């Protein structure tokens, strides 16, 4: 059977490069959907534990809270990188892709450094473990992003993004946008939880211990 010309999956006429591209995009969006469910699960876990504050030990004090400017800075770097990527795709920034890869790499390094700088260890309490895992998820996202961005940069250099494969560039762009959203959700979750740790519980519950980190969002009268 002369399958030689037929077997190459992309040589199967009558499909157009456009069809392949659309198909790849659908696949990428579905993987992003699964990843979004994962990010939502982490975020939910964090806020749920905060809301329950089991035995008053979610963040009983004695250890610090994560500084917020750090994850927000990382998020900002990521957004700027994604913008650089998309501007090159729109044709108005010649080295956008290279800049975006560098930006994401910087964000990756910053996040890892941040994890070493936490004023707590992962095993202190539920709060510390939750901040740790959300930041670690961002590291995973960023590592994957750097891989993909690097691939696109190298492939552009080598002229490998031809025909249907030009779609890879746009699809990686979608991934860039998604990791920014994921980073934003993670950072927002930490911010919300940070804003409430150190707040006293309801009046009828015994205070489980000294809360070393009063938060600005707690009203002083409640304390």
């Amino acid at each position, binding site marked *: 059977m002369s399958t030689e010309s037929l077997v190459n999956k992309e040589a199967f006429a009558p499909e157009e490069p456009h069809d392949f591209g659309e198909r790849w995009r659908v*696949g990428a969006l579905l993987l992003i959907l699964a990843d979004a469910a994962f990010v939502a699960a982490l975020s939910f*876990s964090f806020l749920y534990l905060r809301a329950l504050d*089991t035995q008053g*030990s979610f963040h009983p004090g004695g250890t610090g809270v994560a500084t917020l400017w750090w994850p927000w800075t990382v998020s900002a770097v990521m957004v700027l990188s994604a913008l650089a990527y998309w501007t090159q795709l729109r044709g108005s920034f010649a080295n956008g892709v290279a800049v975006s890869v560098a930006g994401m790499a910087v964000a990756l390094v910053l996040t890892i450094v941040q994890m070493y700088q936490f004023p707590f260890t992962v*095993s*202190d*309490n539920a709060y510390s473990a939750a901040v740790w*895992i959300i930041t670690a998820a961002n590291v995973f996202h960023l590592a994957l992003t750097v891989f993909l961005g690097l691939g696109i940069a190298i492939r552009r250099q*080598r002229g490998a993004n031809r025909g249907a494969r030009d779609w890879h560039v746009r699809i990686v762009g979608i991934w860039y946008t998604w990791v920014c959203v994921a980073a934003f959700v993670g950072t927002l979750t930490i911010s919300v939880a940070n804003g409430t740790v150190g707040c006293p519980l309801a009046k009828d519950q015994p205070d489980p211990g000294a809360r070393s980190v009063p938060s600005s969002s707690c009203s002083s009268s409640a304390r």
Partner: protein
Amino acid sequence: MTTADIYKTDPSPVAPHGGIMRRLNVGTGIIAGIVLAVVANVLAKKLADGHTHEPDVRAVFTMFGWAVGFLLGMGAFTGPFRWLVGRDLTHADELFLAGKDQGVGRYFRFTTDHKVVGIQYLVLVMVMLGAGGSMAMLIRTDLISPNSGFLGPQTYNSLVGLHGLTMILATIIMVTGPFGNFVVPLMIGARDMAFPRLNALSFWLLVAMLPILYSAAFLGGIPMGWVGYTPIADQGPPGVDAYMMAILVFAVSTAVAGMNITTTIVTMRARGMTWTRTPIFVYGVLASVVLALPAFPFFMAAELLLFVDRVMGGGFYVPNRGGQPWLYQNLFWLMGHPEVYVILIPAVTALMELTAVFARKPLFSFRIAVLSIIAIVGLSATVWAHHMFASGWAPDLNGPFMLTTEMISIPTGGLFLVILGTIWRGRIWTAFPMMCTYAMLWNFIIGGITGIYLSDVPLDYQLHGSMFVTAHFHYTLMGAGLTGAMGALGYWFPKMTGRMLGNTPAFVSFWLVQIGFNVTFLGMFMVGLQGQPRRVVHYDASFHTGNTISTLGAYCIGIGMLVLLYDVISSWRHGDLAPMNPWGAKTLEWTVPNPIPLENFAVLPVVTEDAYGYGEEPVPESEPEPVPASAGAEADVPGAPA
């Protein structure tokens, strides 16, 4: 000018690269896996020497090393690496990966042809069902008398957990794996899956998972049952690490497979195959994987948090550090209940597909079938806490969850009516697959109705944690799900293997399994109602009779399954050659010759009508060559043993 020129898919004009890629197979995978596992183990010892969590750190490092090494040795990362450096796989590489002219060897490689992957899944599922079934036999043997002493309490606990997990994982993939991969692309008139390499990846991830899962047996077992509940999971031996890592790998495989199957169905249906002309089985597979896609990440997250707890001393599930076992239960059941329908929908729709064929009638009310599936998918995300009525979590929500759970029985009933309506006044060809439809109707009614009892909050307080629950979900997952998969196997066996499944042994197996099944689990309902708890090795003497009945029934199932296994193996090796379309069915997979050429269709089909136009023309039963093995089953028995 060739097509490759037109689409510029082959950027490398020089000779094909990837000499190493061509030498990789499951052997190199195992070697690389073992090497990396040893390296990771040594590394972990250096890293965590003397630390409290050292055994867990070493366990997870070793398992991770194994999984990565195995996939590396299989060649799973070749594609991504070549993509990164801008040297995409060439035409020749793609041909090699598709398994062209490779004979049996392609089943032991990272082969991308969906037909190969479908067969690989089928064998894997049979191995897993065999392992889980053997464990079930051991469990039932122990329970034959109140204090048999056949198994120790720890061994019993671990066996129950491993049996449960093995069976759940096997049933999740038992229809969408073998038939979703092999049959669906043919059924929709496509030449392969949308992402052939990811298809191979999803399968080999499962192969990488199995040794991890079963290493639990040598690492102290999993004392917390298949659900992996905390806080026991936080405190358990390193066997729990095996559970956790196996789930993480399985979740990745599910996501990849789900995304692949969904993309294939949504974007690659033949020209003219509108949604109203798409066969119901395709809907069933789509619903299953679409449901699993967002549901499994919750389980994955649950296990990742457990990972932080066990390996790094985190406190997600430890109350005195602000953690909460309810968190695990919520995350778990947010996956756990949708997963029931991930298992059931494709099995039931496979039976719908073949019922229309064997009743020689259009599927009764295609629209109700589709709407029911959509309603089940939607509702199944709103019922998870019915597993937590007795846990004390959110008592105020018990009522609403009871309501949503009872509501889901309405679309489920819709699926029943579709099948009954299809059978009604049909000219029924009572072959083995059709018998599975009857059995499913019987078993699923019992499983479904007892489910409504359990969704009732007061009754659930009484029955929770009893053998009644065990009997209930065996009636749904095994009585309906596995029976559906067996029907699907009988139905598509001729297309997948090119040979007919021997009819007489199939019938012998059918009756042994179904009678044994009902004896086993009706006995279990009985002792459950009397109050025998699940997961307890010794029981009160008053439950003796019911348990002995259950055990004898279980042996009957075991013998029946062995008969089916014999039938499958012997028919596969030297059964009667199957004609192209032995059942006279109208879906596209029966329009390709046996053996199926690599590209499936020489010319892609164009669809002009739905697949259920039976009764609009002379019955084509006599059209295909009569096959001796199934000739005895062609008697018309309308309204046969329901």
